[in-house]
């Protein structure tokens, strides 16, 4: 374990660590553009220069191994001047796009200018003109002038997604990032290049111009798109959720997330949500009545439930999708098994591709908490999946905890027909869908960004999600539903 000194601070690092990694561990800031923990070393930006004693020239920190006895300075005058000029060279051909660039507020050029720059620019020659709004694929837009040619995106498509769609064309200051003819970048991890791009050259078509980043707040949670459970950061403000970005977790997703997961925030926004209780009123010919307060609705449901279970608990069925937290399942199962309900069914999204894995992050099981649901069901000694429900006899009442994310349940409409044999169906869902109007009750539920709890991913790892905001005002969680069920209508059974 080599012992080194950085800025007078002694530290011991594992063998093979580069200086920039050592500084990252010690929380010492070093300016860099092209180095990324999850990618190979390029040494192209020349910003991470540090002074190593006994070396007349400054060395780049990303490619220099820490050797025992090394003394390193990152804040001497020589280093500051070199970094300032390296930044200057980056900016001389950079277009004046800050007002229209999405990266403003989280742009490394802006940040380093404030810490190392603050100079009067002397470049008064015409700048290099390249192509502006270039579409690289379905999700990513390129601005060739803003690109600082750090090659992070090229290395990403070569080493991580292994699809090699991006390359650097031409040489010198005519160099541009681009795709090859008839081969756009449409792999399932393309938006990661937008995250790693330190400037506004690569932007996400989905987030483009929607909001300035300083109007957004972040909180950390887990993606609910599939059973991998990538760690993500959700950005939101009072108008809703705007984007989802990956967080580093070596054990689960490394530094990346898939593009499908980027879309999961969409269903949490108000326009897609079920905001109020919807009841099918048979006296009015099956018309939908909206607006009954949630506690009142649950009271009625509870009364009916208790009436049924006191006579024959087998007439009640519960269908669960694995998109809710472990705590919610615990509460619901406890409440219902206490009423002697035994018929629980696990509703999977897709039998054929359920166990598939694309080699990197995305799994065929598009529910974040399958392991959690199975664990809780095992605890309460209940078993069953939707096929059994289909095969079995009809029920008088069915409580369905429907999928939050409807897009990953492609045969949802077919399953609605199946569920109809459940008699009076109480459908718990966060997102609306007109086809649900055939069910007796629709209760609005909270989405994954509004509640806290635990998801268990495919490996059995428990990860906590943390709610950060409130979108649908009347929505509740399964826990609240279960609690209200038990309380309402009098004594517990």
């Amino acid at each position: 374990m080599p012992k080194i000194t950085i800025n007078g601070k002694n530290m011991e690092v594992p063998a093979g660590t580069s200086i920039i990694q050592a500084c990252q561990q010690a929380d010492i800031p070093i300016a860099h553009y092209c180095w990324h923990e999850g990618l190979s070393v390029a040494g192209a930006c020349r910003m991470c220069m540090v002074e190593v004693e006994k070396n007349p020239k400054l060395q780049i920190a990303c490619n220099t191994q820490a050797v025992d006895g090394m003394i390193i300075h990152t804040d001497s005058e020589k280093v500051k001047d070199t970094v300032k000029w390296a930044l200057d060279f980056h900016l001389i051909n950079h277009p004046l796009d800050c007002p229209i660039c999405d990266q403003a507020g989280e742009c490394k050029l802006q940040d380093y200018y404030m810490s190392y720059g603050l100079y009067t620019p002397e470049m008064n020659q015409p700048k290099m003109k390249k192509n502006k709004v270039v579409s690289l694929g379905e999700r990513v837009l390129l601005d060739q002038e803003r690109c600082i040619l750090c090659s992070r995106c090229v290395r990403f498509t070569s080493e991580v997604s292994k699809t090699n769609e991006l390359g650097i064309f031409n040489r010198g200051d005519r160099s541009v990032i681009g795709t090859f003819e008839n081969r756009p970048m449409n792999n399932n991890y393309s938006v990661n290049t937008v995250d790693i791009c330190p400037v506004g050259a690569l932007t996400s078509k989905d987030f483009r111009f929607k909001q300035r980043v300083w109007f957004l707040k972040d909180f950390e949670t887990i993606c609910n798109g599939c059973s991998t459970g990538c760690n993500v950061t959700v950005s939101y403000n009072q108008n809703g959720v705007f984007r989802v970005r990956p967080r580093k977790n070596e054990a689960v997703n490394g530094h990346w997330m898939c593009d499908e997961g980027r879309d999961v925030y969409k269903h949490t926004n108000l326009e897609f949500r079920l905001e109020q209780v919807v009841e099918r009123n048979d006296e009015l010919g099956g018309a939908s009545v909206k607006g009954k307060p949630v506690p009142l609705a649950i009271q009625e449901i509870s009364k009916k439930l208790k009436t049924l279970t006191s006579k024959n608990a087998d007439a009640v069925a519960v269908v669960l999708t694995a998109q809710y937290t472990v705590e919610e399942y615990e509460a619901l199962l406890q409440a219902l098994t206490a009423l002697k309900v035994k018929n629980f069914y696990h509703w999977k999204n897709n039998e054929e591709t359920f166990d598939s894995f694309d080699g990197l992050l995305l799994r065929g099981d598009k529910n974040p908490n399958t392991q959690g649901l199975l664990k809780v069901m095992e605890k309460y000694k209940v078993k069953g999946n939707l096929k059994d429900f289909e095969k079995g006899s009809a029920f008088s009442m069915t409580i369905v905890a429907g999928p939050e994310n409807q897009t990953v349940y492609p045969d949802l409409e077919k399953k609605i027909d199946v569920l109809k044999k459940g008699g009076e169906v109480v459908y718990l869902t966060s997102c609306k869908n007109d086809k649900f109007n055939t069910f007796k009750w629709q209760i609005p539920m909270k989405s994954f960004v509004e509640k806290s709890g635990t998801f268990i991913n495919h490996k059995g790892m428990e990860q906590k999600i943390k709610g950060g905001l409130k979108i649908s005002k009347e929505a509740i969680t399964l826990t609240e539903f279960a609690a209200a069920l038990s309380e309402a209508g009098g004594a517990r059974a």
Partner: protein
Amino acid sequence: MEQKLLMKHYENDEYASYKGYVKHDGYAALKKAFTMKPDDIIAEVKNSGLRGRGGAGFSTGMKWSFLPKNNEPRFLLCNADEGEPGTFKDRMMMERAPHQLIEGMIISAFAIQSKKSYIYIRGEYNESYKIVEKALKEAYDAGMLGKNIMNSGFDHDMDVYRGAGAYIVGEETALISSLEGLKGQPKLKPPFPAVQGYLRKPTIVNNVETLAAVTWIITNGAGAYKKYGTEKSAGTKLFSVSGNINKPGVYEVPLGYPFKDLLENECGGMKQGFNFKALIPGGSSCPVLNKEEALKSTMDYECMSQLGSMLGSGGVIVIDDKQCMVDLLKVLMHFYHHESCGQCTPCREGTGWLEKLTNGIGAGTAKLEDVGLLDKVARHMMGTTICALSDAAALPVISFVSKFRDEFECHVREHRCKVKGKCHAQDHH
């Protein structure tokens, strides 16, 4: 006096063919080398004081001794890219004596125990490529290449590889990248090519002249080579002299030869009507020497570096007093801007900036501060990049501006060229 050690038989047209080469003791050195042990050959070359003739001037024997002592396959690469402006000696060597190079390469390969070597010729040298290819075929037919050369038990294969028009592949790691089929961009060092080079195996990259000199050294011994030249710069060097002189061309003189003699004797002095003004001693990447410095200089590594310049590749560019220094710098800056590979930022952006500034000064549209800015930008481009192209672009700028500042300022202040006397509105590039 010219000392034709390598160039002895270049006037003879037959020398390029195998038959003609063998007539003049061709491949005798190889025979002798096979009687020596590889380590002894390395020691001999080290002893001779031979330094890399491509520009860096690093001791060849020492470079060879950096190879790791393991059983990994090694590669020998001959750098025939010759991109340095002002240099054309390698072209002459390949066209007049390809077998001298091939023999030198086989000896060197035997010394470093390499079974495969490549000659990387720049794409523009069409003639050289054809001649070398022909010579390789002749060598294979004569059994000088392939399996069990001269019954020594040593196998060796050699191939020619053509470049595609980039100066940057003259840099050794860029050459290796290009040979591997990648974009010809330099790689980060460390790891050095001697440890991890072509296909991540130990690789030695040497210049054409260096490898050809090995032939002579093995034939005549290290002691004989050391007799020529100076103590630290042993042997002879081929200088490509160009400019408005009476006899431009390639001349082989011992290192330490005074430049004054080279100009007056070998090159026949300046042409009628032209006076000597400045000298670029080793290709355009070397700082310029003004008249006084040049006339008292000797052509060796030490003297040149003492005067603040470099011997480099030996591309001697003689500048006369009818040449505007700003014009010359414009041409050089355009060259470096065009040839920068674009990998690292200071060079990619800096070369463009230097060209634009120089063009502005030349056209008379610049401000006086731009002359100082030119110098400042060049100084900050040095020492911070992956390879030395950035330094190669910056050094001429710094030396031109410091030694000929009056010409630059005349362009800016008076909007006219000091040398040509004309105003910029008239034709002046």
